[in-house]
């Protein structure tokens, strides 16, 4: 973890040096492969929908490209990049909220996971496939309060890195841990509330 952090800091320093020498194009070319997937995952976690996440990620990267010459290295590069990305996503969410208010019939279009069949069969049905169970679990995750859902989704997207999630959402690592704990506890409670005989077995674990 420390090695990865040191590598990232070294790359950030290289980007900053390129910017100081006036080579913004090379600086952008250096940061793009490192951050594009993370930006997309952050957008996906915040917006819940692939097409909108793709558009928001693209808009964020264009904004980063435009503003890169103004980056002065006072904040970490990742902090600066994630702040731009979050702002783009919040703008997209605001647009969606207005659209939903204007056209209530189309309001479920932005929630890809929520459309999945959450209760198409009995919860303990033996024929439930792995994909169906994943879909039901994702639908269950979508019922969590937004702040818990974001943290939980990003935690698993980012291979369980609390620090990375904290950096992406600009909050302390302790807050991320607390939200993760509450999200899992809420999920466990919802599973019990579904009337499952054995939630552990339904999840694919040992009874």
């Amino acid at each position: 973890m420390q090695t990865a952090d040191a590598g990232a800091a070294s790359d950030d320093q290289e980007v900053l040096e390129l910017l100081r020498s006036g080579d913004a194009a090379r600086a952008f070319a250096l940061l793009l492969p490192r951050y594009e997937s993370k930006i997309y995952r952050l957008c996906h976690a915040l917006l819940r929908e692939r097409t909108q996440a793709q558009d928001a990620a693209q808009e964020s990267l264009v904004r980063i490209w435009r503003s890169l010459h103004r980056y002065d290295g006072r904040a970490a590069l990742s902090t600066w990049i994630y702040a731009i990305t979050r702002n783009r996503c919040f703008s997209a969410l605001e647009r969606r909220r207005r659209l939903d208010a204007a056209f209530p019939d189309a309001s479920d279009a932005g929630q890809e996971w929520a459309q999945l069949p959450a209760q198409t069969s009995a919860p303990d049905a033996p024929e439930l496939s792995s994909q169906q169970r994943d879909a039901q679990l994702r639908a269950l995750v979508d019922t969590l309060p937004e702040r818990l859902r974001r943290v939980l989704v990003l935690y698993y997207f980012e291979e369980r890195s609390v620090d990375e999630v904290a950096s992406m959402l600009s909050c302390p690592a302790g807050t991320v841990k607390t939200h993760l704990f509450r999200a899992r506890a809420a999920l466990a409670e919802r599973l019990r509330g579904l009337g499952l005989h054995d939630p552990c077995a339904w999840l694919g674990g040992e009874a």
Partner: protein
Amino acid sequence: MTHEPADAALDRALDAALTHALVAPQLPAEFRARLQLALARAAAEEADGSHLTRLRQRLEREQGQQLTELQQSYVRLRRRTLAALVSGAFAVGAAAVLALPWLASHVGPLAPLVMSATGALVGLAVAFGGWSLRPGVALSAFATDRAHRD
């Protein structure tokens, strides 16, 4: 914490299930190509924008210079007008002082009345002339036209 999971097994199973269900989405294959297009478009817009910015700055600078010149011309005109009025008043006064004895020897006791009437007529004629040629452009156009005709 009131929401603590009942047992560690459920917690472990939930963690494993979430790891399986919440797989990080992969960037679409065409993402990089679309991004390059968007960046090229942004670069073109920025180039247009900087050209427009330069043009706007030049026009604003020119407009500022014109406004300053106009202001200076206006101040000069007011000074000249004031100087002409004061000089004219002194000249008329001096002429009246000189002309009054001569006029009195020719017209008699009506000399002050004749002088006042003449002064009033000249004043009215000047005022009418000034009013009829009020727009400065018309005056200069008239002068230019005359010069061309001459």
